[in-house]
């Protein structure tokens, strides 16, 4: 199955990427080739095979409910591209 340009455009919004017309064309072509290749896995009989999300057989790792020092606010905000003395700033998101 190959991807359409419209699908790629839709995915670019989901991925919050803005692609130029030329990039969309190239991306459609390249993703198409790769997707076609990975569809090789469709031929494997996976009946009854448990998906393997973790390779290490580790479970139940917890920390105790203890408060540890937070970052000083100026240090937390220092690297933000747009901030005031208290908060990160972004274009208005109300109603988004």
């Amino acid at each position: 199955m190959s991807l359409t340009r419209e699908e790629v455009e839709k995915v670019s919004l989901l991925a919050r990427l803005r692609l130029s017309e030329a990039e969309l064309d190239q991306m459609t072509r390249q993703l198409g080739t790769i997707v076609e290749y990975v569809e090789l896995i469709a031929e494997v009989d996976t009946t009854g095979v448990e998906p393997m999300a973790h390779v290490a057989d580790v479970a139940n790792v917890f920390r105790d409910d203890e408060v540890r020092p937070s970052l000083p606010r100026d240090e937390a905000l220092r690297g933000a591209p747009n901030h005031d003395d208290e908060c990160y700033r972004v274009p208005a998101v109300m109603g988004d």
Partner: protein
Amino acid sequence: MSKPHEVIIGLEIHVQLATRSKLFCGCSTQFGAEPNTQTCPVCIGMPGTLPVMNRRAYELAVRTAAALDCEIAEFTKWDRKNYYYPDLPKAYQISQYDLPFSENGGLLVHDPKQQIEPRFIRLIRVHLEEDAGKSMHDEAAGRDDSRIDLNRAGTPLMEVVTQPDIRTPLEARLFLTELKLVLTYLGVSDCNMQEGSLRVDANINLHVDEGGETVATPIVEVKNLNSFRAVERALEYEAVRQLDVYEETGQRIGDVPKQTRGWDDAAGVSRAMRHKEESSDYRYFPDPDLVPVRITAEQIAAARAAVGERPAELRARLEREFGLGGYDSDVIVNGGRELVDYFLELAERAGDGKLASNWLQQDVMRALNDRAITIGEYPVSAAALAELLAKVKGGELDRNRGRDVLADMEAHGRGVEAAMASLGIESVDDDALVALCRELIAANPAIVADVQAGKAKAAGALIGQARQKNPNVNPGEVRRICLELIEAM
């Protein structure tokens, strides 16, 4: 004349768990701190950081699931729910998708005012997830900005999802009231809606009867519900609005995408919220940074055993063991576990559940309310109040004098005897009492005649006069002696 229909309601409740630290890092969850003072590289989602699960949050969640009769999964995992929003710093929320830690519970909803029959509302699931931060629109002149505070980001939340079993807005409110009570009994959350510790979204649609065929209308999700009363009002409004829309458009479920509406409680209306279709493609997948949790059947059994008596069970016990009515048991149980414990001790010691219930509701709870204190802070112990009730029951004090004594005990933290002494209450000796009664009979021939004519109630007036002359007399004794003397005339 509108068409016959049924209202179908399901609720999603987010409850903040009562942990000291966040779900995946050590930042404090304390409410009300200055913006962005309770964050660290993990909850800011800085690159390379990794989450580590808070054991207490999982324990509280399991306790809740046990109390809500959920099946608890022996294996549970964490998934990422991917979406972009500036208050979600990793651009995914760690949540649970296809293997939540618990499913299929339920809660019995009853109405103390008995406007509805008790109903069992099934739960689809209870799962754990992390909260997002807060976006605040900046109203400052000329700025079209939002400000982001991440203090709340990563706070542990439990999401409770009901089946669409709820049939009326009233039922929705009663369900929430009972759920909140259960959660506060368990100590898993403070359920403070003002601080955002408990948040409710409602899904509602109608099943309209079209001459025997049931037609489902499109489902609407209602948000921005800031109190249980607002939930009820919003759902009442929505049910009417949806019927109007249906009658106008004939739209059925599936004809239009699911709509999200925000409730404006002041205006009493719901309004459509902006909603992009793509935003609901959350691309869930197992979070590779967090290992799964396994719990044994024994641990689950232990969690169930540790739940203790739930509010519904306590109500039933108060009714069964102390003969209380449904209304009274509800008031006491709704007052919280500490109040129930106070009642239990009081009723045991006083040997009279109804008397204990009356005093508790009419006197103790009023005092708590007036003084804005909890039962734990109430100065009169159950043992001391029980002594007072014994005197009232024995006729040594009447209700009003008893109240005076209680007020004194509350005010000065003294025992019953000391309070009575300070009020100058002492027993009147028998001879003095007989003399007083004779005096009253002589002075009130009309009353005597009424009593002799068979109106025993008329003797009440004599008791009133006796108390004016000596506030310490035992009204029961006065009555007994007066009746004896009149009889003997």
